[in-house]
């Protein structure tokens, strides 16, 4: 008898998992109790950024009586937690989002909200940001923050070696030359740090800058793109710097990272988004930023990492969720979020962010970020990327880039049929 009821339970779970949510009982605890509506807001942020978000939530509660914003901080368990939430049709109402190809089927399209609601003042946003939240022609996320990638450099090491600070318009030849001069194996000091496990997403700026790409613009072909001469050259360059000793191999997420070594003053240059800037300053490093170098004779291209806010399809409080998103990207809230780069031109102008030499390169790179990243072009990109990542990693460990990429293309073909 018990077994039968267990089977029944299993069956009802199965019915509920389709994402429709009709088969699963929703408990009242995220509904309204005694006139108070709870809005669940999931974030991946931690530390100071999280504190600021909690403050924004409080501000929102003040202006919306009868509302409680429950800030759910999933930190680096974000994907796992969302998987459980969506899988059981019990997701948060509003959530941070960047991986739209994976999640968009469970997200609410926001085009109607965005076009009808004049308060949003959509024209004030940097327009390029919206492309990253679109699947097909539907908009699933409102940009809340972004970063482009720049080169950080340690001014003290440059001064000691008597090398002038790099300027916008520099080339990879300059870069490699500087890296060589700032390398001193006896002090365990290197010109540059290269990640052992690169996120191929981040490498796209480098590849585009050399005129290469991972996939054709229509998203159907990788042969001749992922393994083109230009793509291979760009990736080979990183491998070569490791081989000739002017760069050190930096470990993955859990290991002593390139950021840690940069903070120790043992690498002179490091490439990343805005994330580590604050911690570099805290560690007492006199840090400068400069836009990415160019390949001689070719325009520099950048890649954008965007964080957006989305609403779950299963949410019971979509209108309230929209109000919250709108508040979150309002001038007032953007000014509170000092760790993020502002997404509104008006705020940037007011705070003169693009005049600050430390912040200017992020905005110059933003102008150079008009290519579409591969993961938005092909729904099977995840599978292809698995092969590509393995190939790129093997180049960091000494393989030949052209051969490795040819192999990756061969191994990926079956996913694109």
């Amino acid at each position, binding site marked *: 008898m018990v077994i039968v009821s267990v089977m029944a*339970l*299993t069956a*009802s*779970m199965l019915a*509920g*998992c389709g994402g429709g949510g009709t088969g*699963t*009982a929703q*408990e009242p*605890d995220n509904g309204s109790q005694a006139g108070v509506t709870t809005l*669940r807001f999931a974030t*991946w*942020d*931690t*530390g100071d*950024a*999280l*504190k600021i978000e909690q403050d924004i939530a409080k501000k929102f509660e003040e202006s919306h009586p009868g509302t409680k914003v*429950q*800030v*759910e*901080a*999933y*930190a*680096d*368990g*974000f994907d*796992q*937690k969302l*998987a*459980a939430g969506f*899988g*059981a049709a*019990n997701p*948060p109402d509003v959530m941070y989002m960047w991986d739209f190809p994976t999640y968009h089927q469970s997200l609410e399209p926001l085009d109607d909200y965005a076009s009808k609601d004049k308060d949003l003042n959509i024209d004030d946003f940097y327009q390029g940001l919206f492309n990253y939240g679109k699947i097909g022609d539907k908009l699933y996320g409102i940009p809340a923050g972004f970063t482009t990638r720049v080169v950080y450099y340690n001014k003290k090491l440059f001064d000691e070696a008597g090398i002038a600070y790099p300027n916008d318009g520099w080339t990879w030849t300059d870069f490699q030359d500087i890296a060589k001069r700032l390398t001193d194996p006896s002090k*365990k000091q290197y010109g540059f740090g290269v990640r052992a496990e690169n996120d191929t997403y981040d490498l796209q700026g480098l590849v585009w800058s050399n005129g290469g790409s991972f996939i054709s613009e229509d998203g159907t072909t990788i042969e001749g793109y992922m393994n083109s001469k230009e793509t291979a050259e760009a990736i080979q360059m990183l491998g070569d710097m490791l081989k000739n000793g002017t760069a050190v191999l930096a470990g993955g997420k859990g290991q002593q990272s390139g*950021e*840690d*070594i940069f*903070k*120790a*003053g*043992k690498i002179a240059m490091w490439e990343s*988004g805005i*994330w*580590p800037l604050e*911690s570099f300053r*805290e*560690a*007492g490093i006199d840090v400068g930023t400069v836009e990415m170098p160019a390949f001689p004779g070719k325009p520099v291209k950048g890649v954008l990492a965007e964080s957006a806010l989305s609403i779950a399809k299963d949410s019971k409080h979509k209108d309230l969720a929209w109000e919250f998103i709108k508040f979150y990207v309002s001038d007032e809230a953007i000014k509170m979020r000092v760790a993020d780069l502002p997404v509104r031109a008006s705020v940037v102008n007011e705070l003169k962010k693009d005049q600050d030499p430390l912040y200017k390169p992020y905005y110059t790179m933003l102008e150079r970020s008009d290519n579409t990243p591969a993961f938005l072009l092909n729904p099977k990109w995840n599978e292809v990327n698995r092969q590509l990542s393995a190939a790129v990693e093997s180049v960091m460990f000494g393989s030949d880039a052209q051969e490795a990429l040819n192999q990756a293309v061969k191994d990926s073909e079956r996913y694109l049929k």
Partner: protein
Amino acid sequence: MRKVITYTLLVFCSLLFIAPLFWAVTTALKSPQELYLFPPKWLPSVWRFSNFAEAWSIQPFNLFLKNTVIVTLLSTLGQLISCTLVAYGFARFQFKGRDALFLIVLATMMIPWEVTMIPQYMEFNYLGWINTLKPLIVPSWFGSAYFIFLLRQFIMTLPRELDEAATIDGAGKMTVLARIIVPLMGPSLILVAVFHMMSCWNDYLGPLIFLNDQTKYTLTLGLSQFRGMHGVDMQSIMAITCLISIPPLAVFFFAQRYIVGGIATTGIKG
């Protein structure tokens, strides 16, 4: 001579186990500028004990501590009672399907949580237990395979004649368990209590999946708030780790003498 070798080995091994923790403590005490120096600085130039208080106050850790204590105490109590009963059942009786059932007990240890996590979440969601401490407590009251197995092994080393003597005197099975077996099991029960407390105290996945609201969070979830998608606040992690390791360490220090001291002096003596 023998003594010298023994002590040398003991001290050497202790160093191996303690040295990395020494680093955790000093990391927590350093100033941000000293954290990443190479060659490493063994001792901070200024001992910043305020780092502990600062890290503790970034998030409501007092609240997290309270939640963790509730979960740990209640689930440990449940674990002790249920596992004793079940282990006794498996160790002392011959019954139909015993070996098969016991193999199922063992098998439940091998289920990878990656795939049962979502259905479990659905079930608790169905019961209305998501975002409460119940999923972290209630299942403990129905025994966990690891401890059932451990206690069974201990009970099976106890001579059967002890039960029999009592049974001949007219004691029922429950009385035998309560009067004869449990007193002899003291050390192994403390062992189970200590082990379960440790795993409960440090559990990350359960709380991550089943809790949403920060007011329900446990210490490890609080700790994970220092580890973001981009970048890790190493100093705060070390500071909090040091602080939250103190209670389990203290429990262990006081419990260990009973765990290892007890068994030799009970029961087995003629």
